[in-house]
């Protein structure tokens, strides 16, 4: 047995501790300080990340929720037959000759009559400025309403029309008397009149259904702009992505995971898929423009082209998710099926695929969610164009011009009028609600059906 005393007692190599190890030395203090600093950096990093997320969501909800309500004017209005139906025979053909200018006159006259009746006066305001309280979109809507039912002419109805964009902004606090001084689209007098109108109950703020249903509106009429076409376009695209991308993605994953021989071709496919997942989305837009539009001649800004581009982008996501869940099915399942005489194909389709289904569905939903939020490639295939007609019902509607939810966010954000920023944030809220639903659905699906082997 070796003993320490074997060694000659030479000079001590280790200096004895000058103090107890229980009291921290200067060196130890420094190291401990470094330790807590390091930890604080970590906390700070997380705080910054989550803080920016919180600030972003806060600003979006602060600016966006007001787009779900809308200022409206309600007043009794006589649809004067002399203006709307000069011949007096209620013939629809002839009445189409009366333009929105005529209807606009009727609206303004009715509003002025109501003001007089209620005794509301505002100094320094012209008749034209009173007329501007009403949205420029209202005359068109009234015209459509009257042409749909010509018997309305001559009767007195309650006009329920949108107020102008600046008046709407005033009620929501975006426009103030100070900003109105500098604004060429509104005068302070109009805002004061709006105050009196809302006291009288003529001007009210209500839930804005038309934000979800009406199509986009031109630069001058932010109050009439809605998400209808964008929602429909996004729905069409998601439908096409679902029916093109999922079967192809699942088939490709089955082949690569279960059948593919190990050779150059399958290696090339594998490398390709992982590289495609990293290609910037805008490159897919260039592909769509060059191949689907310029080469194949599919119509510009149609949802089918948008959907094809998004499908190609989503394909790698779905393939990667599907392969992971096929791989997670234990080989014993395959061996058992093969052992009782099933063919390879029967094993895969009857046993492996059903067991992998929850994972495939989760991956599909997440892939669709990322496709739903994608914007850049859609800009290149013309979906940013101003579309105020609904696409028709599928399948022809797939070829009609449409726009998409995230693209609508972008095109509103790039307009000059600040009222469109509100709309843009409102559209983001709608988009985020869809994404939350999809993601929560995916999580629930995974919790409910995920199997641990």
């Amino acid at each position, binding site marked *: 047995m070796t003993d320490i005393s074997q060694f000659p007692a030479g000079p001590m190599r280790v200096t004895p501790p000058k103090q107890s190890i229980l009291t921290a030395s200067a060196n130890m203090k420094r*190291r401990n300080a*470094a330790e807590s600093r*390091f*930890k604080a*950096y970590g*906390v700070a*990093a*997380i705080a910054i*990340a*989550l803080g920016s997320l919180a600030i*972003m969501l806060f600003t*979006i909800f602060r600016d966006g929720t007001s787009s779900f309500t809308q200022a409206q004017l309600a007043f009794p209005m006589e649809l004067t037959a002399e203006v709307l139906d000069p011949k007096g025979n209620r013939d629809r053909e002839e009445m189409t000759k009366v333009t929105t200018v005529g209807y606009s006159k009727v609206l303004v006259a009715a509003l002025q009559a109501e003001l007089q009746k209620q005794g509301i006066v505002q100094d320094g305001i012209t008749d034209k400025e009173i007329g501007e309280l009403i949205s420029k979109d209202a005359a068109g809507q009234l015209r459509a309403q009257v042409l749909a039912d010509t018997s309305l002419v001559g009767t007195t109805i309650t006009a329920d029309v949108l107020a102008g964009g600046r008046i709407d902004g005033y009620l929501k606090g975006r426009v103030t008397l100070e900003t109105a001084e500098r604004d060429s689209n509104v005068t302070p007098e109009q805002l004061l009149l709006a105050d009196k109108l809302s006291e009288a109950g003529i001007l009210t703020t209500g839930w804005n259904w038309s934000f979800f249903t009406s199509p986009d509106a031109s630069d001058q009429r932010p109050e009439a702009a809605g998400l209808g076409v964008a929602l429909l376009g996004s729905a069409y695209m998601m439908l096409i992505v679902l029916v093109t991308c999922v*079967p*192809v993605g699942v*088939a*490709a*994953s089955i082949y690569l995971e279960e*059948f*593919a021989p190990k050779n150059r071709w*399958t290696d090339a*496919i594998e490398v*390709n898929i992982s*590289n*495609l997942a*990293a*290609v*910037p*989305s*805008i*490159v*897919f837009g*260039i*592909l769509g423009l*060059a*191949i689907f539009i*310029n*080469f194949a001649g599919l119509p510009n800004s149609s949802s089918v082209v948008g959907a094809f581009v998004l499908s190609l982008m989503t394909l*790698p996501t779905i393939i990667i998710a599907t392969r992971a869940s096929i791989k997670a099915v234990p080989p014993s399942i395959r061996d058992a099926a093969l052992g009782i005489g099933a*063919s*390879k*194909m029967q094993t895969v389709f009857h046993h492996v695929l059903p067991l992998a289904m929850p994972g495939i569905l989760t991956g599909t939903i997440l892939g669709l969610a990322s496709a*739903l*939020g*994608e*914007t*850049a490639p859609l*800009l*290149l295939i*013309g979906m940013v164009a101003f579309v105020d007609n609904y696409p028709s019902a599928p399948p022809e509607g797939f070829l009609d011009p449409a726009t998409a939810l*995230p693209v609508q*966010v*972008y095109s509103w*954000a790039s307009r000059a009028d600040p009222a469109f*920023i509100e709309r*843009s*944030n409102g559209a*983001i809220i709608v*988009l*985020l609600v869809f*994404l939350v639903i999809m993601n929560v659905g995916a999580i629930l699906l995974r919790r409910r059906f995920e199997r641990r082997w």
Partner: protein
Amino acid sequence: MSVLMIFAAIAVFSLAAFLLARQRALASGDGNPRLLHSLPLYYGWYGALCVLIPTLGALAVWLLVQPMVIETRIAGNLPAELVADASARDLTMADVRRVAGGLDVAVAQGTMTEEEAGMIRTEFTNVRDKLAAVGVALGSDVSKDVLAAAQDYRELTGWGAAGRTFLILVIAIGGLYWGVTRAHKDFRARNQVEKVILGLLMAASSIAILTTVGIVWSMVSETFDFFTKYPIKDFLFSVTWSPNFRGGSDLGILPLIWGTMYITVVSMLVSVPIGLFAAIYLAEYASPRVRFWVKPLIEIIAGIPTVVFGIFALVTVGPFLRDYFAEPLGLGNSGSSVMTAGLVIGILNIPFISSLSDDIINAVPQSLRDGSLGLGATKSETVRQVILPAALPGIVGAILMAASRAIGETMVVVMGAGAAAKLSLNPFEAMTTMTVKIVGQLTGDTDFAAPETLVAFALGMTLFIITLGLNIFALWVVRKYREQYE
């Protein structure tokens, strides 16, 4: 027969083939399915596939070839000045198709009989008014030649439709006969059907390759076109970018590369430290409870569409930086700037770096930590001197991939970086990137013969090469320097 009707006919024939083949196979085994080679179902599928594959294939080929053949014939009959070059030819053919479509509508609505549509002459009838009456608006009056071509077009299309129907029916009957007669108890139907399915699976997996080929082909051909109209030397080395659709543009890529790289560097300065420290904290310090809540919260950032970050840059970050930093420091008064875009892309990339690094740090074996802690190192010393060096290749890979994402990011820079192509060092100045210019040159009215439009493809090509290169390099780094643990 319309295409829809043809599909219906094909469906009926394949159903019939399915039932007949199944029936025949069962009959050949005296109604005892155990005597058959395959399950009865497979005989049915074999019969159906014998109808489906050749008919659908023939239909696809026909639909692709017919318009080409017809257009060549029509163009051959038109006077030479109408089809002088490709664009004139396209315009004329579009006119012809529109008039032919209008005649179809007129016949369908009953304002014109089939004979009238084939006989009318511009000399006697105003075709434009006649078509306007049925709701088909034409841009200009119809010339004699175009009307004649349109009538030819209708006639040929009619013949084409008849020929198509005939061909498809013949093939369907042939397929049906073939599929049904082969159904016999000794026929290996399952193997045949499985071969077809395998072929379909293979085709599906080849779509990934086709996509890449499509990307490369679409960009390469247009880029070459661009370089025939604009010298490649000027594109790569000129320092001015000033496109002008009337010609005489300067299309140098350097200012765009500079803007892209500047924004990428700023974004990496934000995302790398934050993402890395967040990952280290979550992997090494956080309690399971904190980790359970914080990790998904950070990953929410990754699920938010980039256009939302674009709005954030445009509405919140840009004005904030302008009012509190750029203007007081006298560095400019632009809301959109390198700083705005860089910061926001940095935030966008945090979850990317943090979750990749988190995985990599977790993959470092526990024994290394235990060894280091056992020697008396503090936790942070362990992280810095043991774990990070061990995880370095993976982290470098993650950073490179994040850089490639920052370079290819589009919406944030479109909305937050500005559109002025400049070579400047001031981070509060608006600059622009390759992606912004791709969007700018390809949206709105575009003329695919002008170098100002085609340059977008060259930019896309450059972007594709850079991001692909970075990704391949990242994978190579990870593979080459990865530590192998038992």
